[in-house]
């Protein structure tokens, strides 16, 4: 038996491991996906009796013709880019700080992972409380310094930034801890050699620390992109898509069409555009960046 296993080809061995997982994912995901596809091709009406009539691609065309959709796509893009850049930059900074030897390292690491321990629902409540004028930290500090005007950050100009900072606050520890684990695979003698070569701190970072992190950085850019684009509960709790429709991301718009306006077919069609957007961005990231990193090393 052992002999046979040892003689499996790489492809067979990996299929042996990957196929059960793929079949499981397919079974659980295929039905909802198919159902959503069915909904997107129908006009579903609840009032005056439930009716579903086949309308072909009408829902998809209607989405493309709608201003709300394009606005939401733009909000999603802006929110995602800001979230990902912030989460990756802050995650890297956290990891570099944690990688230095220090006292109570275990405690500090546990504190740093705390934001990721707060559910997205909790993060939403926290940041809404933190940023809104009536209860916010800004107001409290402004008043402590003698001002008498509330500082409200959940406004038309800044709400997306508040959302992105909150999202990055939540995701950064996730990035940081994998980067930290990766940094631990760097042999310490490389740092000794860098010191002998009199490399500056930045050069050491660029030539010793960064290279083994590059692929992980790519993977996490993809993961944070996917997470940000499909984020819903946090936005729902913090801003509810508002003020007005300022922060209505696609997920929020889909929620509104499907559950508030009860236009399930239209909402489902819009969710396929979101799915396409998520897949397109991961593929673009792969072809412009990931493929290069995958061939390196």
């Amino acid at each position: 038996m052992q002999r046979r296993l040892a003689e499996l080809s790489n492809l067979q061995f990996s299929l042996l491991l990957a196929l059960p997982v793929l079949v499981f994912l397919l079974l659980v995901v295929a039905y909802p996906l198919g159902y959503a596809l069915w909904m997107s091709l129908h006009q579903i009406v609840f009032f005056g009796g439930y009716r579903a009539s086949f309308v072909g691609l009408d829902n998809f065309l209607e989405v493309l013709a709608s201003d709300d959709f394009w606005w939401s796509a733009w909000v999603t893009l802006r929110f995602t880019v800001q979230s990902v850049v912030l989460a990756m930059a802050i995650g890297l900074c956290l990891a570099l700080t944690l990688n230095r030897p220090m006292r109570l390292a275990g405690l500090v690491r546990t504190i740093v992972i705390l934001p990721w321990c707060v559910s997205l629902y909790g993060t939403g409540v926290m940041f809404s409380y933190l940023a809104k004028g009536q209860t916010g930290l800004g107001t409290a500090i402004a008043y402590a310094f003698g001002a008498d005007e509330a500082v409200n950050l959940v406004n038309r100009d800044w709400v997306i930034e508040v959302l992105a900072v909150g999202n990055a606050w939540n995701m950064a520890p996730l990035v940081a801890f994998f980067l930290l684990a990766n940094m631990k695979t760097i042999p310490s003698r490389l740092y000794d050699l860098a010191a002998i070569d009199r490399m500056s701190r930045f050069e050491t970072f660029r030539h010793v620390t960064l290279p083994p992190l590059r692929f992980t950085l790519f993977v996490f850019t993809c993961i944070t992109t996917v997470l940000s684009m499909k984020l819903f509960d946090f936005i729902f709790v913090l801003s509810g898509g508002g003020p007005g429709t300022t922060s209505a991301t696609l997920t929020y718009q889909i929620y509104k069409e499907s559950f508030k306006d009860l236009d399930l077919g239209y909402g489902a069609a819009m969710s396929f555009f979101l799915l396409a957007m998520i897949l397109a961005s991961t593929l673009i990231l792969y072809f412009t960046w990931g493929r290069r990193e995958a061939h390196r090393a």
Partner: protein
Amino acid sequence: MTTLWSRLALLVVLLWTLLPIYWFLKISLLTPDEIARFPPPLYPLEPTPAAFLNIFGFDYTLADGTVRRGSGQAVQILRGLGNSLIVSFVVTIVTLVVVVPLAYVFARLEFRHKNTLLFAILLAVALPPVSTLIPFYAMYIQLGLAGTLSGLILVTLTITIPFVTWMLIGYFRNLPPIERLARIDGYSRFETFLYIVAPLGRSGIAVAAVIAFLFAWNEYTYALVLVNGTSANTLPTAISGFLFQHPEPSHLAASLALSILPPALVAFFLQRHIAEMNLVDPVR
């Protein structure tokens, strides 16, 4: 100079991390008067532990004689805590058993269609939950899985498995190719993996465990639709009840504090495995 800068960096890191948590959790120690005060107080003036006792159903008498009643939601909170723990531990263990070998294979072996398989796995997480909620609910009703812990565990696995696989691949690629030596020594693929790769990669595996635990612990959207209001209710959905059913900000803050505690403990015990690899003697 160096220590000054690293201390400063540490200070900034701690502030960034703790400030939002502090600002909200301070509510749990405030009296109702203080919560309503404007401008909001920077710190609790007369901290009381009332809310923390209330969410477990106990009354608390303040110094001036007013009684803060125990919350009627206490049963929900305790049950949610238990259910969340069960779901999170099961999901973590299953995820690790499935994902660690899978990620290792994708990171190390070259074979055809590798990227296609990888993207097929990623597709599962690319689905936005908002659009699959109704179909999921319909499917779960038919299968009798709605309102059960096993149903929630299954859904959560479809999130953790793809994400953690992707995360671990990058990590395994960095491990030194020591397993070739083990293969030469006559170890089978499986033995090599169990005795050489897994101990060597424990930093990454520990982080993966924390991540899987937290994904499961914090899952809210599916839990809200699939198990809320049933006996399989989890902690996040039980907590969200405080905001709408029974507006009591201090209880909300106290139960959020409670919800952070178990994952923080898990993280504390697992982070010890994030350590320098000793390449002279990798198998200790």
